[in-house]
């Protein structure tokens, strides 16, 4: 594997990281909530896909159509029933409660599915590759993942930029109290934001499960990469999330090329460098974050 190859693989990996990071960034933007169970929700979605694949003999890509709405409903329900009760008490109660979700999800998955690693098999596409010439080849599935990330980001951009609900997200992000006075039911809006966040991370979880094996404990690493992508890119910027994901992905694959054990470490070092030099990220919007 040459250096160029490492960079190309890293860019495509960035698409996956963007899928993980987008939902995290969205809910922080709309309601200043840090969801420490974000990675575990993605793994929960992957296990749900395993169940759907076994029970209905589905292709995992088709299982997306079932699991994504279920995860959206889970997000909406948890926000309305639990997380909305923590509103207006600062950031810490939500951090503690979502940390609790993380513990519950991991142990629930361990109890139900054992500690065995799982994998979703879509029937060949995950190993098929496209030769680009010059000895360079990229996996079809990596390309598909990257394209999916771009399509989703465009769709979210349109939702947030052009629709009434998107305006309500932005207004609430600016000034939640005034948004409420204008008639926005913020509890319902937060439910929708969390539903959207978990729908996107469910896609990320299933894509991950097709690329690689996962266990009940795979969530926290995903959360860490998602945070790194969000912070490199800059909070509140959707395209920044993709750029952050790509930078992190390239750092990891190039690091792994230097030495097989250095991939994740190089990613962390690049993240820390960005945090030192541009603590607000590379693509910060003018939006106030308080």
């Amino acid at each position, binding site marked *: 594997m040459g250096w160029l190859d490492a960079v190309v693989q890293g860019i495509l990996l960035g698409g996956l990281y963007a899928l993980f990071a987008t939902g995290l960034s969205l809910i922080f933007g709309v309601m200043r909530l840090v969801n420490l169970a974000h990675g575990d929700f993605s793994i929960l979605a992957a296990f749900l896909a395993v169940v759907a694949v076994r029970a209905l003999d589905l292709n995992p890509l088709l299982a997306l159509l079932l699991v994504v709405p279920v995860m959206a409903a889970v997000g909406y329900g948890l926000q309305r029933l639990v997380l909305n009760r923590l509103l207006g008490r600062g950031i810490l109660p939500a951090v503690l409660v979502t940390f609790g979700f993380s513990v519950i999800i991991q142990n629930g998955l361990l109890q139900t599915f054992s500690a065995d690693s799982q994998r979703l098999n879509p029937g060949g596409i995950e190993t098929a590759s496209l030769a680009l010439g010059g000895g360079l080849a990229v996996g079809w599935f990596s390309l598909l993942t990257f394209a999916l990330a771009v399509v989703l980001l465009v769709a979210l951009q349109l939702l947030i930029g052009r629709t009434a609900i998107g305006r309500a997200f*932005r207004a609430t992000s600016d*000034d939640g109290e*005034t948004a409420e*006075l204008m*008639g926005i*039911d913020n509890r319902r809006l937060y439910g929708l934001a969390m539903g959207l966040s978990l729908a996107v991370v469910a896609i990320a979880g299933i894509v991950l499960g097709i690329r690689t094996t996962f266990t009940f404990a795979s969530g926290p690493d995903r959360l860490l990469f998602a945070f790194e992508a969000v912070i490199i890119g800059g909070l509140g910027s959707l395209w920044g999330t993709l750029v952050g994901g790509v930078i992190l992905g390239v750092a990891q694959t190039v690091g792994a090329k230097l030495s097989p054990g250095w991939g994740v470490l190089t990613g962390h070092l690049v993240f820390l460098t960005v945090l030192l030099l541009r603590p607000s990220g590379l693509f910060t919007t003018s*939006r106030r974050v308080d």
Partner: protein
Amino acid sequence: MSLLAVRDLSAFYGDFQALFGVSLEATEGETVAVIGANGAGKTTFLRTVAGAQPVARGAVRFGGESVGGRPPHALVDLGIVLVPEGRKIFPSLSVRENLQIGAFRRRAGPWTLERVYRLFPILGERRDQPGTNLSGGEQQMLAIGRGLMANPRLLLVDEISLGLAPVIVKQLYEVLAGIRREGTTLLVVEQDVSQVLTVADHVYCFRKGTVSLAGAPSRLSRAEISAAYFGA
């Protein structure tokens, strides 16, 4: 019959009690002014009527229905709409989008983007700019327009003149008179008494969280108002 009837309302601003048994009525179609010094409880009163703060004691009735304690969005559905103190324009939204947020509940009525642009042509000219790029007076117009987009029955207006030049304030009061001619009931809070008394049918003077004087401006003397305002 009164559109808004507040009876014996008490409310808190944080831990501090800001209203002590305030009663106020507004008949459909009239303009009611609430005046008083800084800290008299005027803003707390408006915010409580709009549902942004809880009713500690007392009753708020709107159109004959008890509405105290309902959330703001439910009150917007009934037609109670607040133009907040300090304008509170959303910085990430354009002028047009700020207006559209006002129409979020899709309440039926005469106000549309086109009508607001006719009322405030400057907002139409600058519709694609960020709302906070406007001058203070223009932002106040935007805040009023945003409130109108909700098609209010009762428009609550908090400190319309705050930080604005007298000539702008005069224009804004002319606009309020026009809105009133549409049949919208107005409840206007002001610290600056001179303008508001020219448009109000009734005035309530607040002092230290109670009503110190109430009546039609024409029947009240300057000295009475001054005494009620400052406490003689």
